[in-house]
């Protein structure tokens, strides 16, 4: 039963559009699945390999801009951006890895944070290539209905899930966990830690970049402030995983569901919209203090709390 659970979820998700949901609901669902992809990608690097990245916006934005520039400069369909972003982001990941993976733990986190900012400033200043702050507008949209976008992102999510499951359950996954638990011990056991950290970073970066390429096609407009955003991309990525569950298969999906709906609900309540970073921040603090491994990761703890609550009057 457990073995077929992912297939069951996939089947369930692929019939959802047939229910005839409103365009708005479809939009939300597409965002949830897109954030699930980004969260799963981050989880591979952060959760399994233990390298917390604060700069996933760099990969996301580069993927998005690869699609945008292909359309705007070369006149190709922006959909070519998704395969192209795999190559571009892989190269970027290698460069980032060369620089940042010399750092450990929190210093790696800050190194990637800096890379994210460098990418944003570069995109803002290379006006000839990226249009700077004007952004890139995809003039002709492929489809009007959301349903096709839904199936494409669902396909991307399914492939991402499969890739991560295969990686984590292979030898590679055990290397990653060994590096997370104790890098020096892993090194002394003969694991080439630098190599495997770069592999994790490349995989994670490429998957995030693909999500970015999809975003360009879906939204039809990108600018540096949106796709390279520190808080709204890099930090939200971390929150998706932290809230859902670090180093779990389903954590990012739960986290994405909660975060996207929470953001929408906060936005729809008048007077509260301006405070959404405060609420996100408080949620983050509460989760870290009380459920440090996320909702899925701390299920035993949650069960215990509720059982205790049930027993004591």
């Amino acid at each position: 039963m457990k073995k077929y659970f992912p297939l069951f979820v996939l089947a369930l998700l692929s019939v959802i559009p047939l229910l005839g949901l409103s365009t708005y609901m479809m939009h939300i669902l597409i965002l949830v699945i897109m954030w699930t992809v980004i969260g799963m990608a981050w989880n591979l690097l952060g959760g399994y390999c233990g390298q917390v990245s604060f700069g996933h916006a760099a990969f996301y934005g580069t993927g998005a801009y690869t699609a945008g520039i292909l359309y705007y400069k070369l006149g190709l369909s922006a959909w070519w951006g998704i395969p192209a972003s795999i190559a571009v982001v892989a190269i970027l990941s290698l460069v980032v890895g060369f620089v940042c993976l010399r750092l450990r733990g929190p210093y790696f986190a800050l190194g990637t944070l800096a890379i994210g900012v460098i990418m944003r400033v570069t995109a803002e200043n290379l006006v000839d290539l990226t249009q700077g702050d004007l952004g890139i507008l995809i003039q002709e949209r492929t489809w009007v209905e959301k349903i096709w976008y839904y199936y494409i992102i669902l396909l991307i999510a399914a492939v991402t899930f499969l890739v991560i499951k295969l990686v984590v359950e292979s030898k590679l996954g055990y290397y990653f966990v060994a590096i997370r638990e104790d890098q020096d011990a892993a090194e002394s056991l003969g694991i080439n830690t630098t190599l495997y950290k770069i592999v994790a970073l490349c995989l994670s970066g490429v998957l995030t970049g693909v999500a970015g390429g999809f975003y360009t096609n879906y939204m039809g407009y990108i600018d540096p402030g949106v796709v390279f955003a520190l808080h709204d991309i890099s930090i939200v990525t971390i929150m998706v995983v932290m809230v859902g569950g670090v180093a779990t298969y389903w954590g990012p999906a739960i986290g994405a569901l909660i975060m996207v709906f929470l953001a929408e609900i906060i936005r729809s309540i008048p007077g509260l919209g301006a405070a959404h970073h405060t609420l996100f921040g408080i949620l983050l603090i509460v989760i870290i203090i009380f459920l440090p491994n996320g909702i899925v990761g701390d299920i035993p703890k949650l069960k215990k709390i509720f059982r205790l609550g049930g027993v004591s009057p």
Partner: protein
Amino acid sequence: MNAVQVEVLLQTLISGILLGGLYALIGIGMTLIMGVMKIINLAHGELMMVGMYVAYVLFTFFHIDPYLAVFFAAPFLFFLGVLIQKFLITPVLKVDSILPENQVILTVGIGMVLANVVTMIFKSDYLSTPVDYATKAWYLTDYWRDAPIELSLSFAWSVSFLFAIFITIALWFFLSRTDMGKSIRATAQDNDAALLMGVNVGRMRMITFGLGSALVGAAGCLFIPMYYLYPSLGGQFTLIAFVITILGGLGSTVGAIIGGLILGVFESLTATYIGMGWAPVGRFAIFVAALVFLPGGVASLLRRQRLGK
């Protein structure tokens, strides 16, 4: 090089050093926290932003000069820092989790809350404290009539710079001459050994976090006569503080001072010769260069020299 080019270069260097002095103050706060608690405070820039708003409120409603506001903002941030350490960071240090970087992510959350709360109170408008000495400057030709080149020294920048030097000396005195300062340094060197020697490590951590916050709050007050103020300005200063600590060597106070000066001069040069918009890229170029060529920072060079003797 003709006279004009020399003039531009010297002027750039002067403003770079003045900027670097203030950067050093920000960097010292971060490096202190990093040295004692072994965590990175990603809310550092936001704390500075809070300090700047304290100075702004004092100036606008009570007409207190930003330089005097240092004496109000620093204690205020000290207490804010102590509260953050006591009620948020200490509990997280005790919690067991898969990712050891939880504390870093926690400080990000604190920073987000601070920035957003300030946005809600003051709106995200650009604010400033219009002090009457903001445009005052000393000119070289006023003192030396036949000077071949013209250099100027901004009044506000120079006073801020002197304040920064004064605070740094006071801090050095505190850390090296007082018992509490020695206890803080002992905690930074070896947590367990300090505990065995009877140092109240928990209290030292609280004081260090407060001290780091107070330093960066003071730096905020010194910046405000020259800078615009807006709630999201914290993020860029967190990054600056981090670049300085990497450049200077993690946990090294002298390194942070040198790193701050290097960064200030380098940024100033980028802004003059490449373009204003590229200054942040220059900042990170030097950061990447430091990581690749000098991973231990300036502190490792200092240490090497001392060992050589």
